[in-house]
């Protein structure tokens, strides 16, 4: 029996279980109510229905999931005991190639064999697959019936089916939320492990403080010394994400927040705020090719025209400017929130002293909102240094340690992409370096986020 068929059958059984359990619970409830006691009936009939249906479905579903993993091994075991398997070559690689092909043909995934030796094993394979398929289906159905029957016999008017169903709902939700946490822990674990392997090949001191980054030379056998100095990458990341992008994003974001909260009429605000937030919804790859194809060539031409002939077509400036534009909505919406959170009485107090609106904003509102604004900027920085697409497309790969914004620099994220794309061997220092870079990036953004959230939270408490 095929997988979809058995699932359909189980679903049908579940539906039947639900309907019949509900009907039985209704009858029992009627009888119990006749006794006149208020607590004679505990759960609504629907809960009894769900209780029995879940008992029918869940054990069978768990069994099928386990069986799907166990059955292939059993099938292979049986095929290997078949007389036709005696002629298989002793070499493990050739064996598994033939077995794999035979299985694919038997399962209908492949039409004909490359290796004629496979043909002999097709029949044993299909026999075994059918056999274990039937066994699995029968066992699943037995489990479904057993579970359903057990639950069905427990239905009584005062049986607490609702409590049990609710508990299952809670457990499901808990598992869903744990899944995200477990995944995060898994990612961190793998980062730590691979980084550990990297640092057993390259000293952390050389990695964190070395000034020369040339993983290719290490891969070509010139040794790991001096090849993995990540300072140029850190500098490039900071130069683009924390300096150039912020020079664009902080003033523009702050000024737009001030305009929207202090000057704009409600109608203007109603239109402009969503429009500004649309910027945050533009896919970063779109920003990326905008930076690479439009801004970067224009900047190079500009630089050449003012006499900077060393200007690269993949400049730090192009990537940083576009990234700054991308970040504007983050800064502006955080600043907007914090300025709006400054009590109206503060603003009135200043205006009543005869201060103009702009004096009030500069001398009272922004100082009062500063912690929130700083928090927003930190979050924006953490977002900017983790940003990948724009810098991959526009910033280039040359690990230059330079202050010239028209020169090409590279960033941590760009190098991670570079190290891990294409065919890679996963035990060389060159590949593992990507994980070490990822770990550094992870730690820095985590710290930035923690600091930013604490600053923002502390500030919120101050005015509430």
């Amino acid at each position, binding site marked *: 029996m095929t997988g979809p068929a058995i699932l359909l059958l189980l679903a049908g059984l579940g539906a039947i279980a639900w309907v019949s359990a509900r009907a039985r619970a209704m009858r029992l409830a009627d009888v119990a109510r006749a006794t006149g006691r208020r607590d004679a009936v505990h759960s609504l009939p629907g809960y009894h229905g769900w209780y029995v249906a879940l008992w029918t479905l869940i054990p069978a579903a768990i069994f099928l999931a386990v069986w799907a993993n166990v059955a292939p091994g059993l099938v292979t075991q049986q095929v290997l005991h078949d007389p036709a398997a005696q002629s298989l070559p002793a070499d493990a690689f050739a064996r598994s190639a033939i077995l794999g092909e035979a299985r694919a043909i038997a399962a209908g995934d492949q039409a004909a064999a490359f290796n004629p030796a496979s043909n002999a094993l097709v029949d044993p394979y299909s026999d075994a697959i059918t056999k274990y398929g039937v066994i699995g289906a029968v066992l699943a159905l037995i489990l479904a019936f057993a579970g359903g029957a057990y639950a069905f016999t427990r239905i009584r008017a005062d049986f607490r089916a609702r409590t049990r169903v609710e508990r299952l709902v809670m457990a499901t939700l808990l598992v869903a939320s744990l899944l995200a946490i477990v995944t995060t822990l898994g990612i961190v674990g793998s980062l730590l492990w691979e980084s550990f392997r990297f640092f057993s090949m390259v000293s952390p001191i050389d990695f964190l403080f070395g000034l020369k980054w040339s993983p290719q030379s290490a891969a070509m056998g010139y040794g790991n010394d001096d090849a993995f100095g990540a300072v140029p990458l850190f500098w490039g990341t900071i130069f683009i994400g924390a300096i150039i992008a912020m020079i664009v994003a902080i003033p523009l974001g702050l000024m737009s927040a001030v305009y929207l909260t202090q000057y704009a009429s409600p109608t203007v605000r109603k239109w402009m705020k969503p429009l500004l937030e649309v910027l945050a919804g533009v896919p970063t790859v779109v920003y990326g090719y905008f930076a690479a194809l439009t801004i970067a060539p224009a900047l190079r031409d500009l630089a050449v025209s003012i006499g900077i002939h060393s200007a690269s077509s993949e400049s730090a400036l192009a990537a940083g400017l576009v990234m700054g534009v991308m970040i504007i909505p983050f800064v502006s919406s955080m600043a907007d929130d914090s300025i709006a959170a400054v009590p109206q009485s*503060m603003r*009135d*107090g*200043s*205006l*009543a*002293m*005869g*201060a103009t609106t702009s004096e009030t904003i500069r*001398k009272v509102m922004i100082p009062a909102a500063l912690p929130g604004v700083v928090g927003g900027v930190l979050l924006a920085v953490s977002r900017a240094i983790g940003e990948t697409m724009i810098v991959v497309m526009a910033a280039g790969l040359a690990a230059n340690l330079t202050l010239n914004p028209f020169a090409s620099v590279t960033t941590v994220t760009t190098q991670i992409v570079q190290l891990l794309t294409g065919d890679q061997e996963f035990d060389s220092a060159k590949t593992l370096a990507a994980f070490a870079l990822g770990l550094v990036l992870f730690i820095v953004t985590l710290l930035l986020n923690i600091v930013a959230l604490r600053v923002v939270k502390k500030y919120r408490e101050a005015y509430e």
Partner: protein
Amino acid sequence: MTEEQKLLSPADPKMTARDVKVFYGVKEAIKGVSIDVDMDNVTAFIGPSGCGKSTFLRTLNRMNDTVASARVEGTITLDGEDIYAPSMDVVQLRARVGMVFQKPNPFPKSIYENIAYGPRIHGLASAKADLDVIVEKSLRRAGLWDEVKDRLNDSGTALSGGQQQRLCIGRAIAVEPEVILMDEPCSALDPIATAKIEELIHELRGRYGIVIVTHNMQQAARVSQRTAFFHLGELVEYGVTSDIFTNPRQERTKDYITGRYG
């Protein structure tokens, strides 16, 4: 002229309001109010919540300008000059007519900077020494100097509620206003802090024209010479404070003062 007429229509009024109406959109919040403010007497506005007394107070230094839908009709003058005339600079006006709010609202700056804020934005002091003098003088007049002279660099928000309110009064005094508007200045304070503010109002009287909004009738009786009773946007009764409280002419005033509503 009787004493009463002299008090209610002083010969040299600092500010006058004639038939002032305030509209929020189409709603008429203030319905034709006329009063005078002079330097020697304190004017109190009393009335139940929502009667328009704070709204009217805010027309006197054009703080209602910050509310987009508010519109003012009638004439308000300061030294005979119409404050709603196009030639009137609202920044100058607010420097001359200061305001103290219901809830103490010191800026999140040091005590010194709170007082220095106004003089700085109006360019009243050119040197640090001048500013120091203004700060000390203002804090002395606000009755706060002795309590804070050793910690001028502490944050203004760290003071107690009553001290914060006196700081706000000192802040208003620092720009040398001619009139000070007080919008329920004691409603967020305890009785001792309230007594100090009331004492301060007595000391400031004569030097500044003072208008105080209060929902506390004893306070109005204690600090003011003239009282205006507002109800539903109307100026119901305007008279000498002692008369209003002992011998109200209007039925509504009497009901309010005897605590029948409000």
